[in-house]
């Protein structure tokens, strides 16, 4: 029985959620599935003793298997650079993540916080991976990253969004009311495009996963901030799925910008 991530046979008469629950049971870290399939170094902690075949497959080397089956920690990072999985796989996994979190949380705020924590872990890993790949492609010896606030926000806006969603965000704006608030706008998020929230939970935005992702990236770049997601589709009838990621920067970031600025 092969339980490799991303492949599972679905029985035709069963519920359509089968594939996502079996994916979830093999890895306690659902944030490992982004649109591009990244190897997750934490899988060692999450493998349970009842899933011995998985452990053999990941760490057992090549006793009875073919030559090409290297264990996951030795694989080259660039091997999965252009790897793709089906969007439906992600959609089912994310739907199950949401209903799993919902059954364990008491309120909308708690649910958003859980999704945000999951996204945070993804953001941290994505940041390291992107910086590494940028360094490799430009052949520099030292990793290069931005220090100032506006280039950092632009880095998130173009590169990170391009890596995760396939295209840069639709807008980066500065809020007119407060100096330390910025907004990233996405008209149609591929992560949660199939989800429609019922009326009694209209405050919930499943984009809190994306908000957590942005927060993880910003924290890694030494820009602590509070990031939340808000759905504004009802104000824009052209884009009924429009979401705004609101970034509220910490005071010490603003102080640092001032002292570095002029």
């Amino acid at each position, binding site marked *: 029985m092969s339980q490799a991530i991303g492949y599972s046979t679905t029985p035709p*008469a069963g519920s359509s959620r089968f594939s996502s629950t079996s994916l979830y049971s093999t890895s306690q870290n659902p944030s490992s599935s982004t649109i591009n399939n990244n190897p997750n170094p934490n899988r060692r902690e999450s493998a349970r003793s009842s899933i011995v075949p998985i452990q053999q497959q990941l760490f057992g080397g090549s006793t009875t298997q073919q030559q090409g089956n290297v264990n996951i920690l030795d694989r080259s990072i660039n091997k999965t650079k252009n790897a793709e999985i089906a969007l439906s796989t992600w959609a*089912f996994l994310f739907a199950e993540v949401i209903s799993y979190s919902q059954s364990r949380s008491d309120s909308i705020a708690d649910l958003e916080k859980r999704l945000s924590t999951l996204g945070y872990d993804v953001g941290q890993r994505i940041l390291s991976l992107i910086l590494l790949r940028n360094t490799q492609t430009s052949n520099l010896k030292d990793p290069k990253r931005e220090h100032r606030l506006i280039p950092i926000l632009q880095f998130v806006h173009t590169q990170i969004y391009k890596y995760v969603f396939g295209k840069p965000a639709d807008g980066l704006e500065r809020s007119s009311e407060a100096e330390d608030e910025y907004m990233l706008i996405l008209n149609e998020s591929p992560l949660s495009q*199939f989800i*429609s929230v019922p009326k009694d939970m209209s405050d919930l935005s499943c984009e809190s996963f994306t908000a957590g992702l942005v927060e993880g990236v910003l924290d890694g770049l030494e820009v602590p901030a509070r990031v939340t997601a808000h759905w504004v589709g009802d104000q824009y009838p052209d884009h009924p799925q429009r979401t705004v990621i609101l970034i509220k920067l910490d005071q010490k970031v603003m102080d640092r910008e001032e002292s570095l600025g002029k």
Partner: protein
Amino acid sequence: MTIHGLWVISKAGGLVFSRSYSDILPPQPVNTILTLAGILHGIHAITAKLTPTPIPGVPVGGLESFEAEGWGGKVFLTPTGTKFVLLHSIPQTGLDDLMKRIYEIYSDAVMKNPFHTPEMPINSSLFETKLQTLMSGVNA
């Protein structure tokens, strides 16, 4: 060449979705539609049992379409037992393609929605919006 309405019947025979897209057929109270859907589910089950020796490899299906004066209905059975009943005017072409697209919209908007309980009435605004776009494209 208009689509009059769409019903979605769950595996157990209960109506989970009904919407009408034209004014030709008179509007029915919800209870009537529930009863009609239940009757259709029963007829479908009976016809599935009555088919002659099935071709091996082809799943046994039941009622596929019915016609009245000037309008008809087409039934599409999914592998999981959900039925899509499309009420349309006669003559109508391209029904199979339309049913497939409806099924696609269903599996996107309803099945991938974590807030939908299976076999329960569908109330997803995304599903309705996408269907509305599809139907207005066909009815125009």
